[in-house]
């Protein structure tokens, strides 16, 4: 298994869930920009599941050295990289912030996924799970740079799914909604709309086994987003969302 963004709590919870369910991986490749945090996780799964792993440092905001990734062999890719950045008010006119959001959530990420997609394609097997966001379903004033990058990522995953279908590789899009993670710590989130990483992982794992195409983590979000997507633009633009 390959994990992009292996410090993500959802990614870690997913790895644990898969191992608990008895999935076997020769090795888990933890791709990360933070060695310290991934090392903690690597030791943890070794103690808990006798699971071997390898940490590979990559930084999406820098040039990626693909030779480090050549030897990786797996047929499951879990992509949880993401960067929320500063919301529109503070971040909109800060070019660095904007660039980072677009790089990490989309422009630098896509070639990296393509690299693995090609490997999967040539073996004619594998699953790619990508964490996108409900923020990509419709641009809202509070986080539309992030949302636009996620919208692009959602479109990419959908196209990739279509492209790889014939090649026996499955692509699954996950739109988590609010989650109780580092990204949202300290924010006053409605508990009924917020999933814990463990809940998210359980739900993603189930959908993975059923080869679902696109899922919301909590079912309530499909209803919320259905409504949000269908508000007429002339009303939507006046809303403070």
């Amino acid at each position, binding site marked *: 298994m390959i994990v992009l963004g292996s410090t993500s709590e959802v990614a870690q919870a997913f790895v644990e869930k898969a191992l608990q369910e008895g999935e076997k991986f020769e090795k888990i490749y933890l791709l990360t920009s933070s060695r*310290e*945090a991934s090392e*903690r*996780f690597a*030791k*943890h799964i070794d*103690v*808990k599941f006798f699971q071997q792993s390898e940490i590979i440092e990559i930084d999406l905001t820098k040039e990626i050295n693909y030779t480090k990734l050549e030897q990786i062999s797996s047929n499951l890719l879990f992509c949880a990289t993401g960067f929320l950045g500063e*919301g529109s008010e503070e971040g909109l006119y800060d070019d660095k912030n904007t660039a980072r959001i677009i790089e990490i959530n989309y422009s630098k990420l896509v070639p990296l996924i393509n690299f693995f997609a090609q490997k999967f394609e040539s073996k004619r097997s594998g699953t790619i799970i990508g964490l996108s966001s409900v923020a990509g379903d419709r641009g809202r004033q*509070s986080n539309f740079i992030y949302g636009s990058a996620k919208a692009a990522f959602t479109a990419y995953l959908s196209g990739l799914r279509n492209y790889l279908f014939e090649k026996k590789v499955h692509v699954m899009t996950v739109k988590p909604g609010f989650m109780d993670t*580092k990204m949202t*710590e*300290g*924010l*006053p989130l409605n508990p009924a709309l917020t999933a814990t990483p463990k809940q998210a992982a359980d739900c993603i794992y189930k959908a993975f086994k059923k080869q679902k195409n696109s899922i919301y983590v909590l079912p309530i979000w499909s209803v919320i987003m259905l409504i949000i997507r269908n508000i007429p633009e002339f009303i939507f633009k006046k809303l403070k969302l």
Partner: protein
Amino acid sequence: MKPNFVKKVTNWGNFPVVEKEMRSEDQYSKIKDFVLNHNEIIARGNGRCYGDSSLAESIFSTKKLNKFISFDRLNGIIECESGVLLSDVLEISVPQGYFLYVTPGTKFISVGGALASDVHGKNHHAEGCFSEYVIDFKLMNEKGEIITCSREENSDKFWATIGGMGLTGIILSVKFKLKNIESAYIRQESIKAENLDEIFRLFEESESWTYTVAWIDCLQKGKDLGRSIMMRGEHAFPHELPEKLKNNPLRLKKKFSPTVPFYFPGFALNSLTVKIFNYLYYKKQAKKEVKNFTDYDTFFYPLDFVNDWNKIYGKKGFIQYQMMIPKDKGREGMQRILETIANSGSGSFLAVLKLYGKENPEAYNSFPFEGYSLALDFKVDKNLKKLIGQLDSIVEEYNGKIYLTKDSMSRSSLTNYLKNVENPKFISLQHKRILNNNTI
């Protein structure tokens, strides 16, 4: 939306409820920043203490310090971060033939919380407190430095932190020993006792058993005072087990745990319902003596079977009153405590009596000493303070003590026993209350 981290926080008794800043980090550099930039900090594990000991102006939650570090399977030595729960430890250790040396009556507490309260179990008389099996731990002090503490290294901090209720700093990780077991089952005997004399005799007789505890029906008066059931147990060997358990003695089947869905209305728990509960509990066991095998979950953690059972006490919450009286006066003291409770009519669902062995004189902040302890749950209501005052007076008369991790309103003469912990950075609402001689 800017994060402000202010949250409603409360512990297992749902009393008191406070709104304070609570943060959780998993990187040491960020924890250090938190420590340096805040005052009046306390660490909080899984909030399974009953009162205000893990509440403060700024709370550091160890929720994210939830990773295992190493497991020496040959010698049964495990190291993990402080937020790892005992249930997580058991999940990996039991199938490999290891159990916790010391476990409290719930497995949903953190390793950090076990150390900070120096918890005890049903085997205190035989195996002591949690700290006996701790090899070393890492502590972040008020300067944000990480120090390793063991019996040899920084031993003053080692002993002050054990039972020190988080007042010496934030425990980051703990390395401790596990005990060998050959099955996940307990050979158990439950014996009914008609009254106090009989249960005290049973305790004295059972000293060679590793695990002993008694459940008391504390509404009984007169000749029935102290009516109770003694439970004693040993880790079972595979050859003793019934046939159907022999094949896979270290694995338990997954059980279903119901959840209490909401706070019960205040009137649901009154002296009548408690009376009925206690009556049924005692009568459930028809025979004087029952011998059987039970899995470790049922034996050690019967209460964990119902998630969120604390909600049955209603929104106002409840307290647990756990006191301890020296052994020679145990029988007399308990009689007076039980009489006072029976006369007050404020029943307790759960009254647990336990005989403790000798204390470890080095672990000077630990609660237990050689004697008897009784733990009782009481719903918070207008009569409670008066009753606690009466009980406190009796405990004081017998030179007893109150368990800090359960305390929320006892008088400070019974709770002000920690030494070597004064620290400008780390102070809990509980410690402040005790120092100011206040009750909530």
